[in-house]
């Protein structure tokens, strides 16, 4: 479904992504792990054209998105939802307006259908309807994150990109969001690419794990393959999981 080939990206002479190549199949959950500053979020933003790689191609269902202009990217973005590191909700709008915002533009639905989708998407992330008239600043950070996911789910994307979706959340909400990613993938056949530091979660729900370090892929494969890796950084991640369990 998505194929990255020889992606390179640098900022002010500093290489952030160096010759990255891998592919993501339909309905797959792919976790991209790595320490901070290794280019994970940059890779995700390249996927939806928020950034352009210096070289390489990103094929989305056969279309090279690197070559597309903003207008053409809109068609790709209608199929891709991205959950950012920050909740990225619009401060001046209520939760209801935030949820309806993309629907009006991308789906061109009538008000009744929009209202239906808003309620459905809030239910999907286990939030009650009484927050609909509140501003983002009036609800907790965890709730904001879930509203952000609901806003993305409402447009029914085929691909979901999660940029550290559980950062700053409590363990209960973290588990709920990980479970949500799993359910969406298995039940709705949504392809998910998740950027994370959480190897434990990756082991639980990923189909494929990719480990980045200093802009290079140092390990990739199924959960079992990565668990057997002898790469020092990957072993460190595994050790962290073992410590968490014990």
């Amino acid at each position, binding site marked *: 479904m998505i194929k990255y080939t020889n992606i390179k990206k640098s900022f002010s002479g500093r290489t952030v992504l160096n010759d990255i190549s891998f592919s993501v199949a339909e309905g797959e959950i792919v976790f991209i792990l790595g320490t901070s500053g290794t280019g994970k979020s940059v890779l995700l933003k390249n996927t*939806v054209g*928020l950034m352009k790689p210096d070289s390489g191609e990103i094929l989305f269902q056969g279309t090279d998105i690197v070559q597309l202009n903003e207008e053409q990217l809109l068609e790709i973005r209608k199929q*891709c939802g991205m959950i950012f590191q920050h909740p*990225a909700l619009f401060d001046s709008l209520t939760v209801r307006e935030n949820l309806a*915002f*993309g629907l009006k533009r991308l789906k061109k639905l009538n008000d009744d259908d929009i209202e239906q989708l808003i309620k459905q998407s809030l239910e999907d992330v286990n939030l009650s309807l009484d927050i609909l008239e509140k501003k983002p600043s009036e609800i907790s950070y965890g709730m904001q994150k879930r509203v952000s996911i609901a806003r993305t789910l409402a447009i029914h994307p085929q691909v979901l990109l999660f940029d550290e979706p559980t950062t700053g959340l409590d363990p209960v909400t973290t588990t709920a969001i990980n479970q949500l990613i799993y359910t969406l993938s298995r039940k709705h056949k949504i392809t998910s690419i998740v950027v994370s530091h959480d190897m434990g979660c990756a082991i639980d729900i990923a189909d494929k794990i990719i480990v980045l370090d200093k802009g290079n892929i140092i390990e990739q494969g199924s959960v079992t393959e990565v668990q057997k890796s002898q790469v020092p950084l990957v072993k460190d991640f595994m050790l962290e999981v073992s410590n968490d369990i014990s």
Partner: protein
Amino acid sequence: MKILAVAGDFTHLLVMSFRSMFSPPWRWKNKMAALYFVAVESLPVIIICVGFAAVVTIIEASYHMKIVIQSDALVPGFAAILILRELGSVISSLLLGSRVGAGWAAEVSSMKVTEQIDALKLLGISPIQYLVGPKLLACILGNIVLGVIANIACLFFAMLISVFKLGYTSGMFLTTMRVFVNFQDLLFAMIKSACFGATIPLIACFCGFRAKSGADGVGKATTDAVVGISVAIIFLDFILSYIFSHFYAS
């Protein structure tokens, strides 16, 4: 090379922003909110400041004219020219730039830092159309209105100080003023206000869009915006005054 890239980015923002003013979606709610923020909420501070500027101008002009030509009879006329050609539009625009420009630069830069700008793009909404377009229209229209009100306020305060401090009657002030200024001066003041008004959201949003991450990035973007707006207004004032001087001469 970097300067060329920055100039290119700014030109792109300028063209796209003006285009967005004349293309749907119209977002009247956003435009009205921006207009209220610009025109209504800025009005008190602008009237107070231009009023005091007018008072100082009259007192200083009178003092120096009395020393040089032993008469301040021309003060109302000169003050009226100075107010209509410079003070009314420049001071009100500089104040508006500080107040509104800082607010918008902080708003856009914090949206950039918290990835709201990226979220807009993903939802298929042009950040320029959504954020800059309404502000640009509001600031052009708002600053024209504010400029006219500032000029009226300036002249009113100038007349008051002339009556109470210099001993002229209001009739004498208005008669002398009428000899020196005409409708063309007010028209040029409105053109200046429109140009200065356009400068404010363009520079504020440009700095906001280029903000680096963190609170530091938001602070720097806001500072850059206020400095940039002030310098641009003063530079534009020079250009426009130079152009208008050819019309005054004829």
